[in-house]
């Protein structure tokens, strides 16, 4: 299936870019006239994925985060968020609610749970040493209502 519109972004994995990333994706999908809740769901899911790239993928080193958004017929949005960081050895474990590798105690371990429940579909592909790619999908059904 060919997208009817798409955009690509790449930016440095600095935490100040988390806000930029979710706002840019929200601005791009705004043409589909989503309601406040749909837009907020997408922003939250993108924020989780991008934060994962920064905190876990690159472990606060500076790398590049890639975002590719495609819009398909029927207001279907597919968002790919990718890093070339350390990758995830055990994806199943990483997706468990409340599981986190963060030792400071200030990360909730809910990133994947939130992406999964706020979007229609979520897929994670990862190779240790190569990086991680998260695919998120959502249909915009509200037409602003």
């Amino acid at each position, binding site marked *: 299936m060919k997208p009817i519109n798409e955009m690509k972004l790449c930016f440095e994995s600095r*935490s100040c870019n988390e806000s930029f990333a979710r706002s840019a994706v929200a601005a791009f999908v705004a043409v589909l006239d989503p309601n406040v809740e749909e837009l907020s769901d997408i922003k*939250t899911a993108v924020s989780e994925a991008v*934060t994962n790239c920064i905190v876990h993928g690159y472990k606060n080193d500076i790398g590049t985060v890639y975002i590719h958004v495609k819009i398909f017929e029927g207001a279907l949005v597919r968002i790919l968020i990718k890093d070339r960081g350390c990758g995830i050895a055990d994806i199943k474990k990483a997706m468990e609610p409340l599981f986190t590798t963060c030792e400071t105690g*200030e*990360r*909730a371990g*809910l*990133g994947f749970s*939130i992406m999964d*429940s706020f979007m229609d579909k979520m897929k994670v592909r990862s190779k240790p040493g190569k990086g991680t790619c998260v695919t998120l999908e959502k249909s915009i059904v509200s037409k602003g209502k």
Partner: protein
Amino acid sequence: MPVEIDIGEKSVTAYISGEIDHHNAGEMRTRIDEAVEYSYPEVLVLDFGGVTFMDSSGIGLVMGRFRLMKNLCGKVIIENAPRAIKKVMRMAGIEKMLSAENKKEGSLL
């Protein structure tokens, strides 16, 4: 300032505003913890009235403050959370951690 602090006789109220993400949460945490460690309150009120966006970093912020107040034998009350923020909190099961007062007043859900 993303966090305005109001220190009362037995309570500390933190009025949080703007976006809570991984980038901002650290500074918010420092502001709140400084006030708590300064005045050892019985109650910490986290007021989310001015929050326009929150991801799981906000959940980390709340859970960390729950732990801090538990260590001081105090409690946390969450107030004025907008709808989108409540949705994230509900998903994280935060309401299970709330004190009885908070549930009674129905300030979260």
